[in-house]
């Protein structure tokens, strides 16, 4: 058992997958450290993507399988679809999820639909690794989450791990999965740590996790929001309020059972999602609860999300944009007192 950062855990899962299955390849910009040419031996792995997550892979597995691309996401995402259909298990990097729009067609109309519309003979075992999230002072075009864009599309699976344990286990599964998976890594979580067994088994997609047991209220937290939920729960605990925190981890498919069970127990729910509110995961989860658990609900399902604005750069504004422990605490108190 070792303490690992999310970043290390992801690198571990990649290395393991590369070792176990020669059909696993990786494509993305600057993953090889750019000058992957022989005359620059040693500097090849200088980058490993902007967060260094894939460092070491180029040296270990070579440029044939660890493939530096041009800034041509429609091109290489489409190529991943074709490679996946014909036998490889490509992992492709969307450097920031904010760039989703330049290759959304490849995911929405090709990766997601070929199996269905061509009669079920094909499968597209590809993984899109992408970086999401605000709080990095990275401005409007490098800070979005956009979970719901992908979750809306039938045929895609959407995974968003919170800690290193889940990151490793879920990435192993995602790579082994026969469907296209969008694997969303939060930039503000990369350096967070937890214990990760070396021989961690793949964690099945579609299974949520109760991060904290509780009895008074259910907090359904999306990815980084678990941090604030746990924070809030601590404060609330001292006030005698017991929060149950659920991290669905996978958003398509969603572990509805786990959520519903908790709600049936507590009757009060908050969904916390860092995304913009409209048609978000928060909307989705909230609407499912109110449809399926109405008789158990003691109050309307509350959503805590970012406002309906782009992500602002300046720290006071960005901090205001991101849901906070404080907002969670206030909302819980409101609900408990209602």
């Amino acid at each position, binding site marked *: 058992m070792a303490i690992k950062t999310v970043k290390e855990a992801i690198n571990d899962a990649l290395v393991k997958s590369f070792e176990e299955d020669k059909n696993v390849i990786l494509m993305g910009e600057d993953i090889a450290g750019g000058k992957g040419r022989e005359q620059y031996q040693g500097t090849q792995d200088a980058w490993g993507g902007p967060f260094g997550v894939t460092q070491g892979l180029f040296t270990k597995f070579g440029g044939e399988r660890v493939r530096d691309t041009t800034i041509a996401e429609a091109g290489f995402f*489409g190529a991943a679809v*074709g490679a996946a*259909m014909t036998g490889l298990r490509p992992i492709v990097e969307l450097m920031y999820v904010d760039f989703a729009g330049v290759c959304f067609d490849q995911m929405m109309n090709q990766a997601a639909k070929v199996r269905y*519309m*061509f009669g079920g003979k094909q499968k597209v075992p590809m993984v899109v690794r992408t970086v999401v999230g605000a709080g990095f002072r990275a401005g409007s075009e490098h800070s979005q989450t956009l979970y719901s864009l992908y979750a809306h599309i*039938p045929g895609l*699976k959407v995974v968003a791990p919170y800690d290193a344990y889940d990151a490793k286990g879920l990435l192993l599964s995602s790579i082994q999965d026969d469907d296209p998976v969008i694997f969303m890594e939060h930039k503000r979580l990369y350096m967070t740590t937890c214990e990760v067994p070396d021989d961690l088994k793949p964690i099945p997609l*579609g299974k949520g996790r109760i991060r904290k047991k509780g009895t008074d209220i259910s907090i359904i937290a999306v990815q980084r929001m678990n941090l604030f939920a746990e924070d809030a729960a601590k404060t609330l605990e001292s006030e005698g309020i017991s929060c149950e925190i659920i991290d669905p981890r996978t958003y398509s498919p*969603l572990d509805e059972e786990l959520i519903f069970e908790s709600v049936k127990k507590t009757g009060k729910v908050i969904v916390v999602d860092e995304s913009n509110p409209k048609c978000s995961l928060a909307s989705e989860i909230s609407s499912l609860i109110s449809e399926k658990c109405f008789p158990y609900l003691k109050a309307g399902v509350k959503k805590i999300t970012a406002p309906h604005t782009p992500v602002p750069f300046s720290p006071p504004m960005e901090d205001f944009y991101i849901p906070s422990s404080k907002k969670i605490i206030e909302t819980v108190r409101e609900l408990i007192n209602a």
Partner: protein
Amino acid sequence: MQIEKEKLIWIYKKLFTIRHFEERIKKIAKDKSVPGYLHTCIGSEAICVGVMAALEKDDWISSTYRNHGHAIAKDCNLNEITSEIYGRSTGICKGRGGSMHISDFDRGMLGSFGIVAAGPPVVLGAALQEKINKGSKMSASFFGDGAIHNGAFHEAAGLAQLWKVPMLFICENNGYAEATATDWHLNTKELSDITRAYNMKSYQGDGNNVFEVYEITKNAILESKKNEIPIFLEFKNYRFSGQYEGDTQLYQPKEEVENAKKNDPIKIAKENASKYELDIMEIETIQNEALAEVNNAFAYADTQPWPKPEDALEEVYVNYPSEYN
């Protein structure tokens, strides 16, 4: 060029099959016996057949919404193709795809994509897979003259050349992208000049002459594999069909159509038959066989069972809790 008899017969058979098939489609479109969009490829037969004659049976291709000819030439089952167009459960995509998405993975069809220029990147991926796995299948993407303006085509072309991936970019320059004449949107003298941006090898050919298409493609495959490079092929022909069935085609001037008829690929193939020592009688026999098969296929399709409504829920994923649909 020498072509063995069996292949010759295959070529003629496919040419006739496609033409008869599409003529029949025009008819059922008119009498509205099948719903939805129907894009026929009358005028493209020589390209479909010539290229497929040069490819091996299990090579990879992608097609577009204008895919009947490619599917037929790729030896997809004619009954299943037709049944698909009729939306029946025995259709090649179980009725889920329809005319625009006819595709059979078992025959090397990666897909018929409704999005212009969606195919080239996907085929690039298949070609990359062959390269990485040291496979020997060729990969070829069919697309139209309209697709060359699209970013996805450019990105795929750039990467293919960069990665030295053996594959064919096959552009059917049929004079129109929907209602827009090709030359009205071309910045270069020749369409295939577009490849200069990538230093990509390209060849042009007469898309109405099945033997020319076959020869050019065959050579291109050899060159592409040998030198590990992608190659762009431009075949010029004419879109006798409208963009889709029902299109008034008002924008296609009469004289233009009349002129194009002189180079009808079926007519040219018939004229060339004697060069290949096929006599009129043989040709006629082949044509009759083709027609009979087409008739059979439509008779078959028309009597096939509909899918069950709930079949709509199947095969979205390989693994997914189905109650979530």
